[in-house]
């Protein structure tokens, strides 16, 4: 009965969504632990160590603390928008995971426009940051929101350009098809389109508001930016969403550039996860290595470098594809 239900497209999608949400919850814990350990090791510290064996239960303790905290709506805040924002931030993430091919058959939902779906729904994140900043009636929140919009709008362009180059080359927006086109390490798009990968990765760092592009939540300038006024799980959901988006961008990067689940010996899904978490590790290294850019530098990098380079890359790809065909 259940197996029959799972075989229907709707049943399959629901099961995939449940699995994705479970994965995201667990992933939040793993990434918090990973981030703090990476930070500690880079600074020659042990990182969390006291809660549980080697500090393994530290993220659980953090999560319990966040759950137990009182939820405060600031005076003069727009309560509806204020509490809507975290959910708008987190809800689309699950949908972004649906078209990602974790393994040869481990795809939540096969669709022709998978890449487009991910790009469209991850764009909603900017909206949630604006609502959070606007709704909380706080100048730091509003400044953070303004920065988030400018940053997201700017960096979505090079992100799309680099993704489009790969889509041109593969002739498809279906992530599974793109992965199928990369068999063997030398045919990975990382080596075929290195410039697109660099542009994609920089833009993805900016899209996920990670350091050195974490201007919307710059601690030293804006207290906590758009989530200044959020307490307890309000903040917790933003946090979870940020880490989930990191996984989304790294998973898309893996599928587009690193051959997806392509790899010897082990089953594909392990290769896929290994590549994703390797990219996440690089993002974490970025955070603890580079100082935050200034706002004008942020926009200069985008408009003066990434977009022209992305356009040139796209035109070159189109030309080559035309000539080869």
């Amino acid at each position, binding site marked *: 009965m259940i197996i029959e239900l799972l075989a229907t497209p709707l049943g399959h999608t629901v099961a995939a969504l449940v699995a994705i949400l479970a994965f995201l919850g667990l992933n939040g814990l793993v990434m918090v632990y990973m981030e703090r350990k990476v930070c500690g*090791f880079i*600074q020659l510290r042990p990182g969390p160590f006291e809660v549980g064996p080697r500090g393994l239960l530290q993220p659980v303790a953090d999560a319990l603390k966040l759950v137990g905290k009182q939820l405060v709506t600031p005076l003069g805040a727009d309560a509806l928008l204020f509490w809507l924002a975290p959910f708008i931030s987190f809800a689309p993430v699950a949908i972004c995971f649906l078209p990602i091919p974790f393994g040869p058959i481990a795809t939540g939902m096969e669709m022709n426009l998978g890449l487009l779906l991910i790009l469209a729904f991850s764009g909603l994140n900017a909206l949630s940051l604006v609502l959070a900043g606007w709704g909380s009636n706080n100048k730091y929140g509003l400044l953070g929101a303004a920065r988030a919009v400018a940053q997201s709008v700017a960096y979505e362009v090079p992100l799309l350009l680099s993704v489009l180059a790969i889509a041109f080359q593969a002739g498809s927006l279906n992530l599974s098809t793109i992965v199928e086109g990369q068999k063997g390490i030398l045919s990975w798009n990382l080596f075929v389109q290195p410039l697109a990968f660099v542009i994609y990765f920089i833009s993805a760092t900016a899209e996920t508001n990670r350091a050195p592009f974490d201007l919307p939540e710059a601690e030293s300038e804006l207290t906590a930016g758009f989530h200044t006024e959020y307490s307890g799980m309000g903040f917790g959901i933003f946090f979870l969403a940020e880490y989930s988006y990191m996984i989304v961008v790294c998973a898309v990067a893996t599928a587009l550039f690193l051959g997806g689940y392509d790899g010897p010996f082990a089953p594909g899904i392990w290769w896929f996860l290994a590549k994703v978490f390797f990219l996440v590790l690089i993002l974490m*290294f970025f955070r603890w*290595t*580079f100082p935050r850019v200034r706002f004008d530098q942020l926009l200069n990098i985008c408009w003066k470098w990434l977009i022209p380079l992305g356009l040139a890359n796209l035109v070159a790809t189109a030309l080559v594809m035309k000539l080869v065909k």
Partner: protein
Amino acid sequence: MKTIGQTIKSLWSLIVGLKITTVEFCKPQITVHFPRKEVTNLGSYRGHIDLVPLANDPQTPRCIMCGYCADTCPSGCISLKFHMVGEEVNPEQRRRLLLGLDVAVPRSGGKTPPPDKIERVLDGFHLNYNYCSLCGLCVQGCPVGSLAFSRDSYLVGRARQDFEFDLLARLKSRAGTNSGKAAA
């Protein structure tokens, strides 16, 4: 052209930065999990001062009660208490003794003072660590090398009184525990 060269240089600097953090990432930690482990490389650590005992008698400090440390301390942390035992203590001798003219030979490198008929007995060596700036003048200037920095890096206290020490009592208790350990 110049801009492009500069950009490539800046991009290279990012890679250099990443290399540095990667190297640091792989290095062993240098912090110590305190309650379970303690630091050992305290050779140059300056804790509060402590009395150094005689080589043959761990109960007795090398101190000759010259008072140099108390005089030289810029913060006035140190105060000595002693009394004299002996028959021929006349006022003139007493004064000389207090000044330490005969006894304390400057820069004698810790040699025992010349024998004297009048013996001085140390009753207390008080240190008010609250005001100590760890300048080390007392340790540097002690003519018999009776002062040294302690290696107690985990010293904590909740009140001002916790940092007022009787170093003589500390020395005696330390000698007691040491001999106890040796006996055990």
